[in-house]
């Protein structure tokens, strides 16, 4: 019992010292709370992948009733129908300077071919400066056109053969009915922010002692390595817990995104996830010597996997081979699944248990590694 008490004493001593240090460096304290908050908001606003109001213009060489009808179809929330252009050169100029995203060209024989019984063609020129937007715009254009075709066919053969669309496709977006990218992306950003921030702060905490030389005090005390490291991470766990709650509130109040599941189901995952990331910070600062180096290495090892292999932008189901294995080995994917599960799919803790267990195992390995690599002596 006495051992236990001494251990607890030593851990709390380190933790209290660390908290005092954080509170007394005001800029650091500010950065601990404000940086994640700003980053979260910026990324959440900024990462929206919805393409709306795309500047769009058309050249109508045909000037028929039919062509006017087609143009009318492009007046929707996806396009910002700018104006009618008269010549191709002007259109290309506007596309190459980025003023327009797409131009539709209706040829002069457009309505004539249709009435004569041939197929007509319409050309779309799309700005390839931003490929994702280009492909999406092409999708919009071709969908609008195929709806227009079906409409024409029904009108023509009404009563004879067709009464309605011959093959109806009922598309349902599960978990996110209105398909707002923010519904999936904004909660995901919690995982990204809770990855970077605790890791960077913890890495700084240990490298600061190294850089300032106060680590020598630790070398000469009876404290055990794991006790020291545990004490060190407690304040950052508290900071991250506060940040986590702040972010969940922000998602609700600022972005108006409802949580379909239960908040309680999110908590264990968040705790283990933060523990993992704090351990990443520990591990990095055990091998680097200066604060600058510790920051840099931490950002490199956390940011890229967070964006590339987490399922944030590219679904893990679509990854192939090596990338798929990497995604499964990083903790972010697992926490992201828990977030999506609770926020959108209304899953509970039991459904998400495999991900949680994997993360606990991950933490155990990482913390042990951190304790082993950390040296309580010089050299």
């Amino acid at each position, binding site marked *: 019992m006495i051992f236990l008490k001494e251990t607890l004493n030593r851990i709390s001593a380190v933790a209290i010292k660390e908290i005092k240090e954080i509170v007394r460096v005001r800029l650091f304290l500010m950065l601990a709370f404000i940086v994640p908050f700003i980053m979260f908001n910026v990324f959440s606003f900024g990462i929206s992948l919805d393409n709306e109001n795309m500047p769009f213009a058309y050249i109508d060489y045909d000037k028929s009733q039919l062509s006017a009808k087609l143009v009318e179809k492009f007046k929707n929330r996806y396009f910002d129908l700018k104006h009618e252009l008269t010549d191709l050169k002007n259109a290309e100029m506007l596309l190459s300077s980025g003023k327009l995203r797409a131009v539709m060209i209706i040829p002069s024989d457009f309505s004539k071919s249709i009435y004569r019984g041939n197929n007509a063609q319409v050309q779309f020129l799309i700005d390839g*400066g931003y490929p994702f937007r280009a492909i999406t715009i092409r999708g919009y254009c071709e*969908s609008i056109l195929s709806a227009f075709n079906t409409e024409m066919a029904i009108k023509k053969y009404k009563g004879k053969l067709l009464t309605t669309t011959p093959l109806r496709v009922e598309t349902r977006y599960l978990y996110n009915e209105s398909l707002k990218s923010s519904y999936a992306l904004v909660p995901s950003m919690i995982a990204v922010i809770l990855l970077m921030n605790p890791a960077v702060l913890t890495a700084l905490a240990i490298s600061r002692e190294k850089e300032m030389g106060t680590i020598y005090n630790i070398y000469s005390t009876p404290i055990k390595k794991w006790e020291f490291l545990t004490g060190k991470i407690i304040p950052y766990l508290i900071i991250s817990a506060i940040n986590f709650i702040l972010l969940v509130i922000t998602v609700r109040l600022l972005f108006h995104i409802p949580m379909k599941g239960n908040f309680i189901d999110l908590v264990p995952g968040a705790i283990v996830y933060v523990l993992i990331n704090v351990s990443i910070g520990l591990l990095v600062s055990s091998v680097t010597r200066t604060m600058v180096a510790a920051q840099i290495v931490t950002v490199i090892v956390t940011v890229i996997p967070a964006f590339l292999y987490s399922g944030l932008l590219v679904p893990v189901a679509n990854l192939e081979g090596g990338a798929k294995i990497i995604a499964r080995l990083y903790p972010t994917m697992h926490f992201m699944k828990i977030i999506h599960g609770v926020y959108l799919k209304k899953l509970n803790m039991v459904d998400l248990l495999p991900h949680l267990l994997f993360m606990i195992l991950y933490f155990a390995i990482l913390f042990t590694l951190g304790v082993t690599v950390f040296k309580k002596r010089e050299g």
Partner: protein
Amino acid sequence: MLQLIRKELLHILRDRGLMIFIIYAFTFDIYLAARGFNLIPEMVSISVYDEDKSFKSRELVEHINPPAFKKPVFIDNYKDIDKLLNESKTVISLAIPYGFEKDLYKLDASLQVLVDGTQSSTAYLSSAYLNIIIQKYTLDFLKERLKASNITGLNFIEARSRILFNPNADDKLFEGINEFFMIITLIGMILPAAILIREKEYGTIEQIMISPLNIKKLLLMKITASTIFLLFLIAFSYEIILSFWLGFNLKGTLLEFLAISLIYSFATSGLAFIIASIAKRLSQIGLLTMVIFAPMILLSGGWVPPESLPFWLRKMTIISPLKHYMDSGISLLIRGASPEQLAYNMIKLLVIGIIFMITGYLLYNKRVIKG
């Protein structure tokens, strides 16, 4: 004068941590971004629940092919659709109901498509891909049917879409160049800020105050040194990483790109002054830079289309230097715009740069030199 520039350049080169970061950023980071990010869905994983098991239903499924889709996973239980989507094993599911073939001949059939809406970047495009496949199949079928019943004259409007400047909509080209702009911005702020703060941290700024050296001249030399170094890095990365390693076919000349980067560096150096005035130590620069960098990304137009931003944010993009730099850079490197087309943007960028520079200098003067 040259001595001073040389001193600052040596300082940069001898800071090992900073150098490793800079080299990593201008080489591997750009390479990884170009290779790793691909927002355009390819090989989407799809499951098919075919209750009809008829000739026509199989014919339809045969149209679902790479590169848009992976080979479909067949399931024989409607409940499995939910299970696969719940576990994010597939992104999209197609359910073909019993009697599909019969209904199709009556021209009154229906299909159900279920999409995992949590996969935001992929959900819309995958369902659009699938819809276009189905529509095409329907129109072909309809034509065949009408022919059989001797009705002619069903005509369609065909779309001929051409994507300009990047015909295959190769996302690597864009992601690589986008990351290139991010890195230029980041290093463009960190490098001068690190140089400006070093004297403050080491206390050598006191020495300079009492030396006959003019402090304004010293600051000018510091900024000149970091700008020269930055331009060198840009040229290196442009030639070696973008053109050679990634094999991008960039339009516009290196000289033109360096010219617009030089104008851009006024703005980033101005921001570096502001960072160096606020930060107390070198180690604080990293986090402070992120605070400034994050809003710049949002307003740049590289991640989110500026047209889709809320109105007030759209208006704010006018003061974002990265937006103007990015617009001009993409126009120059990908779209191949002429310098005259970029002139207006460049003037805006220059004005912003000068304003940032003056603000930064005044702040630095007040907080560091006088303070």
